[in-house]
């Protein structure tokens, strides 16, 4: 009797760990068999409560994850049966799920997270909902953790997630892997969502935001493991790894951001760079170029030793333009041209983009940079001041202020 409490604590600890590691897998398996988010979440919740009781009494099962899966499926089937009496569709799900429980192999729970990722990142959902839902369901972040990065309240994010779940059901978004005709457009939406999770984490100064970067890397890695190597997935993962590798070098001791080619290479993560290079090589071999592969190649050229390969970057921007003819791509391309001694062309190009990018902080920084190169210091000072005004980020502001000081304040 005296052992009850420590044992309960031990069981709760193990359960906690299983849920933390395997929630995404369990949930995706349950959702695709029970056909509904809410039923699956409730069933897993119920199964966890049962686990506390049963494991405490009869010991930890051989495979806790399989135990939870089996019990949650049974709970889910009961729920479907009792809540909806004669609905045919529900009956189908119940039968399907039943068949699955009979065949359950404790060692081998099929990984259904890919289906779940495609459902959470469906283009019929709003972008921010895709992010929140993916982080909550696949990555198991709490609504509080997600809210911290979005600078939203816990309940706003909670509502957004439950509305998104309701929409998946109402719109009839299936838990299926898109067929070959839809594959490339869907994988594109999934990768853009994951990349947005990454960049949101990267630019946000909240300490919790590092989670977003790690989760994005985890998601891209997962996607890469669960699919037949798709060059765009490899490209996206390579791009994020190359960015992540520079994380510790991107801000100097004065708290100012440092341009990539001026960073201290000793502080780059070589392991991540090597991993990214392998991925990129594999991707390029397939000869199916796409925007993420090009962006990863651009990052690679920017990090080249001893100096960035500006010439190659200019070619790459030309290819990127075929996929993404946007003002932002044109702006970056112009900056590369200015490094190739084509400052005047670069300036003209940047000026034509002003209307589209009048609220885009990097436009002012790029404009100031090229004006400086041309020796037009007065105009450059004005542009730096405008860039500083629009900067959301402390490190960036420090960097721009330093540049302004180099020109001498008037």
């Amino acid at each position, binding site marked *: 009797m005296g052992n009850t409490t420590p044992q309960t604590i031990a069981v709760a600890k193990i359960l906690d760990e299983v849920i933390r590691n395997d929630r995404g897998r369990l949930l995706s398996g349950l959702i695709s068999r029970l056909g509904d988010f809410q039923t699956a979440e409730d069933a897993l919740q119920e199964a966890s409560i049962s686990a506390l009781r049963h494991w405490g009494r009869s010991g930890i099962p051989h495979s806790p994850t399989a135990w939870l899966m089996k019990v949650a499926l049974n709970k889910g089937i009961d729920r479907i049966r009792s809540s909806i009496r004669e609905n045919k569709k529900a009956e189908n799900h119940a039968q399907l799920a039943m068949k699955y429980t009979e065949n359950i192999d404790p060692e081998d729970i099929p990984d259904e997270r890919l289906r779940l990722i495609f459902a959470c990142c469906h283009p019929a959902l709003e972008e921010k909902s895709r992010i929140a839902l993916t982080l909550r369901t696949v990555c198991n972040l709490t609504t509080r953790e997600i809210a911290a990065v979005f600078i939203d309240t816990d309940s706003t994010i909670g509502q957004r997630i439950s509305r998104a779940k309701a929409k998946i059901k109402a719109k009839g978004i*299936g838990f*299926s892997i898109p067929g070959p005709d*839809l594959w490339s457009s869907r994988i594109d939406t999934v990768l853009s969502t994951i990349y947005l999770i990454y960049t949101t984490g990267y630019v946000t100064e909240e300490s919790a935001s590092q989670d977003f970067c790690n989760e994005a890397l985890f998601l891209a890695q997962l996607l890469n493991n669960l699919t037949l190597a798709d060059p765009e997935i490899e490209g996206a993962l390579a791009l994020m790894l190359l960015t992540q590798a520079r994380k510790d070098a991107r801000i100097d001791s004065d708290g100012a951001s440092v341009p990539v080619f001026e960073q201290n290479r000793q502080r780059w993560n070589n392991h991540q760079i090597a991993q990214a290079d392998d991925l990129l090589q594999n991707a390029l071999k397939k000869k199916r170029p796409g925007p993420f592969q090009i962006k990863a190649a651009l990052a690679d050229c920017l990090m080249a030793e001893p100096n960035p390969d500006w010439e190659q970057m200019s070619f790459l921007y030309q290819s990127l333009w075929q996929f993404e003819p946007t003002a932002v791509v044109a702006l970056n391309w112009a900056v590369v041209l200015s490094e190739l001694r084509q400052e005047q062309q670069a300036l003209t190009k940047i000026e034509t983009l002003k209307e589209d990018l009048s609220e885009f902080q990097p436009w002012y920084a790029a404009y100031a940079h090229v004006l400086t190169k041309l020796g037009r210091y007065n105009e450059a000072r004005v542009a730096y001041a405008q860039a500083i005004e629009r900067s959301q980020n402390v490190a960036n502001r420090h960097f721009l202020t330093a540049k302004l000081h180099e020109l001498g304040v008037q």
Partner: protein
Amino acid sequence: MKYMLLIYNNPAEEPEYGTPEFDSMMSDFFAANEKMKEDGVLVDGEGLQGIDTATSLRIKSGKVETMDGPFAETREHLGGYYIVNVPDLDAALSYAALIPSAKFGTIEVRPLMDYNPAG
């Protein structure tokens, strides 16, 4: 699940009768119909006459008001619809993409309400 594919377009942007573009649009419509029939998903589908033939009605304080014209003046009008019975949204979207008007208008895909009394 049943979905209605609502075809919205701006008549001004539709290919004109008698042009090769018009003919190719019609043969694409025909191909879409055939594909939906062949796959056994087509429940219904019709084209509508132009908005100049529309009559709108509403009841205000018990009195029927009848008006010439559509309910709302917009650039894109409802020009026709399909109803398809398919497993999920992706399937509905793939049929919507076959409708040639998607090239110059918009296809809105909406699930029908399910009146299953047991649900």
